[in-house]
Every structure is written in structure tokens, then in C-alpha cells.
């Protein structure tokens, strides 16, 4: 409980700092109050909700592809020492590439719209999920794997009943990073390769120098990301405590 209170206090403190900054730099920022007013105005506008749904839709699809794809790459590689030794540096270097550089390629390949955004979200999210899953599986105690072998479990059975349960806390840590980066990827995709969604509204606001809309959109993205992450963090802690 105290923890929630502390986080609340921190939010208030950040709000105060923001307010002071906004007042002292008159042109560049607007106050938190004005931002929230703009947010409410946006929600009253019937044309706003479709943008939100568009972004949620793109985010959901990207997250699905990132998680399923990442696990399909990471789990088998983690069980194979040679596969892991070969793949890890490749995955790490793709993970840390500034993938925004690739946006012209994605645009040329997928055109403007939903497929480009989902592709962009997925290339951001899939590699951290794969890397974490791979390392999680590689760190599973060898005793479990030998037990699975002794019990003559088939490969899918061993994955489902032994490997994944043993590795799940670390896999969830990977999902958390995947969640954040997929979100970032979808928003970037919308900023550069879309006519719809929150990222598009953001880019539009940047072009029009409409600071209130910019801050309102960023604030809403942040709130959504904090909630999603807090849930995953809670799940993470719970799973780790169980071990």
C-alpha cells in the first residue's frame, strides 16, 4: 500500500515539475492541466476513438506476432547449444540495430497502412522475446532436461511440461521488454507510415506544432504502457516468488 502511495507522490511531484517547466518556458510546453483538458476534448470528439482502436488493433497483432514468433525462434535455439552459439550474436546485433532506419524498406514492401505498422511493431518486439526465451531455456537446470529424457517425453511434450514452466519467469521478463518495444515500434510505424492511429496524430501535431495534442497523445501512450508493464511486472514477481 505504501508503495502505491509513494508512486502516487512521485506522479504528483512529476506533475509539479512539469507545471513549473511549462510556466517557465511559455512557448515550448503547456501545463498538465491544459494537457488533460485537451485529452478530454479529444475523447469527446467522435473522430478520436477510431484512432485509438486502430493503434490498439495494430499493437495487439504486433504483440501476438512478436510473442509467438519470438518463442518459436527462442525456445528451440535455447535447447541446442550449437544453435544458440550460432544464433545469439546475430539476434543480439539485430536487437540493437536502430530499426527506425529500416522504415523506408518496410514502407516500400508493405505500403502505407496496417501491415506496415504491424511489421514495424513486430521487428521491434520479436527479437527481445526470442533472446530472453533462448537464454531462459538455456539456463534451465540440466537435471530437469535429463528427467524429461528419462521419462521419454517427446520434444513438444518436454517443451510444454518441463522446459517452459521452468523458464517461465525469465520468459515473462522478455515479454515485458517485448511489450514496451512493440509499443514503441507500432507508434514509430504510425508516425512514419500511416494515416491513422495515435502515432499519426502525434506526427500531425508535431507538424502543426500543436504542443497540447502532442503531450496529450504522449501522456496517453505512457499511461497505457505503464499499466501494461505494471501488470506484467506483477506477474513476473508472482512467478519468481513461486519458484
Amino acid at each position, binding site marked *: 500500500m505504501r508503495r502505491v502511495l509513494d508512486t502516487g507522490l512521485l506522479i504528483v511531484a512529476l506533475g509539479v515539475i512539469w507545471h513549473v517547466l511549462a510556466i517557465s518556458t511559455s512557448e515550448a510546453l503547456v501545463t498538465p492541466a491544459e494537457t488533460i483538458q485537451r485529452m478530454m476534448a479529444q475523447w469527446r470528439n467522435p473522430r478520436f476513438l477510431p484512432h485509438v482502436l486502430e493503434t490498439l488493433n495494430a499493437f495487439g497483432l504486433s504483440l501476438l506476432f512478436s510473442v509467438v514468433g519470438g518463442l518459436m525462434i527462442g525456445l528451440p535455439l535455447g535447447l541446442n547449444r550449437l544453435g544458440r552459439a550460432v544464433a545469439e*550474436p546475430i539476434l543480439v546485433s539485430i536487437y540493437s540495430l536502430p530499426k527506425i532506419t529500416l522504415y523506408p524498406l518496410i514502407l516500400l514492401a508493405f505500403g502505407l497502412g496496417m501491415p506496415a505498422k504491424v511489421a514495424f511493431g513486430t521487428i521491434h518486439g520479436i527479437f527481445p522475446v526470442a533472446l530472453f526465451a533462448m537464454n531462459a531455456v538455456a539456463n534451465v537446470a540440466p537435471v530437469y532436461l535429463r528427467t524429461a529424457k528419462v521419462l521419454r517425453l517427446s520434444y513438444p511434450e518436454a517443451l510444454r511440461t518441463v522446459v517452459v514452466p521452468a523458464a517461465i519467469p525469465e520468459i515473462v521478463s522478455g515479454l515485458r521488454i517485448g511489450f514496451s518495444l512493440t509499443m514503441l515500434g507500432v507508434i514509430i510505424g504510425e508516425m512514419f507510415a500511416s494515416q491513422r492511429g495515435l502515432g499519426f496524430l502525434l506526427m500531425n501535431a508535431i507538424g502543426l506544432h500543436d504542443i497540447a495534442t*502532442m503531450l496529450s497523445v504522449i501522456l496517453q501512450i505512457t499511461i497505457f504502457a505503464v499499466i501494461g508493464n505494471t501488470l506484467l511486472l506483477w506477474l513476473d514477481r508472482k512467478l519468481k516468488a513461486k519458484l
Partner: protein
Amino acid sequence: MSAGHLRHAGWIRTGIVAGLVGLLELACRLGWLPRRTIIPPSEMVSELVRLLLRDEYWGDIQATLTSVAVAFGLALILGFAAGVVIHALPRFRRALDPFLATYYAVPFFAFYPVFIVLFGIGRAPIIVVGVLFGVVAMIIATLNGLDRIPKALTKTAAILHLSPLDTALNVKLPAALPYLFTGVKLSIAYAFIGVIASEFILATDGIGYEIAYAFNNFQNGTMYALMLFIIVLVTCVNAVFHRFEQRLIRRRSR
């Protein structure tokens, strides 16, 4: 699997990457992939060599790399300092946790126009975005590193009556170093992302700007050459850091 197999991992990896590049080349040459979408890798390379031999893009390259270097340096110093301070304040840290964990979901380069108003046009707002992107990776790594210092080490330092400064420099820092290095590695990757993303949005120079410019003007050759440049450059930088990190880990496990 024997260690003998693992020795060949590097060769297998090179083979896979070369095979994929060769496949892309073939797909482009045979017309499976249309030229307006992607050009063959060999043309990207020859175009890049041509561009680098002319003077045109060296200014942009220099501008981008300088910004990344400055942003990276600032992110390291600020991130480490902030990490040490936050680590000393456990209550503040617990309150901050959800924000640190979510930080990278927020597209901070969207603030770039605000920074232009605050810091003026030029490299300063771009560097600020680079620092914002890089600094939190370093804060998280610093917290993690300080958490993982074994109690036995700090107790030993206390028994030996080391001064706080000696304990910090000779006991705590070496013990936390591998974790700090993870932060260093991520910081530079994020500094690149922040700088290049900002250049895409509103800049007047830099490699990111030139890629966006070439894209808008249908100059696929120039665009892919510059993209290749960034990818190769970042991969090399990461490889150097990765190697360094491996050495740190090996020295530690000895």
C-alpha cells in the same frame, strides 16, 4: 554436444549470413523482388563506395557520429550518477520502478520539436533526445549492478577497514562492472536510435535526414547505401562491445 562443434559456430554463422545475403542478391537479380522495393546487396555496396569516395555525405556522417558520441558519453555519466543516487534511496526507487520499466515504450523523440524550441535548431536537441534514450538503460544497469554486489565482499571491505572511497573504487566498482557494461552496451544502441530517429523527423543534416530525403525523392540507390552504412557501422560497434564484455565475463569466472 561437444566443444568441438561449438568452435565452428563462428564459421556456421558467417555461412548463414553469407547465404542469406546471397539469397537476397539472387532474388533481386532474378526479379522475384521488384527493384522499386529493394536493390541487390552488391549494388548497395557499390553505391555506398561511390558515395563515400565523393565528399557529399561525410559532413552528415560526422554530424551523426559526433552527436551519438556526445549523447552516449553524457548518458553514461548521468545514468551512472543517477543510478548510484537512486540506489541509495530505496523508497524512492520502489516508487520509480514502474516508470523505469515502461520507459522504453514511450517515443521520447516525439519531444524533439519541444527541444528545438528550448535549445534552438542544430545538434543540441538531437543530442538531448539521444541522452534521454540512452540514460535509462544505464540507470537500470547501475541499479542492477549495485544490487548484485555480494554481501561477502562489502563485509570483507568493512573488516579490512577500507575507507568508503576505497570500498567504492576497489571493491564495489569491480564487482558491479559486468552489469554496468551491459548498460554501456545498451546505452550506445539507444543513443543511435534516439539520434537517428530525431534526424528523421525534422533535422537539416545527418545520416537519418539523408535517408529520409533520399526516400522522399525515390533515390533508392542512395537510400539503401546509407541504410547499409548505418547497419554495418552499428553492427561493428556492437561487436566490439560484445567482445569486450565476453572478456570481462571470462576474467570474472576465472
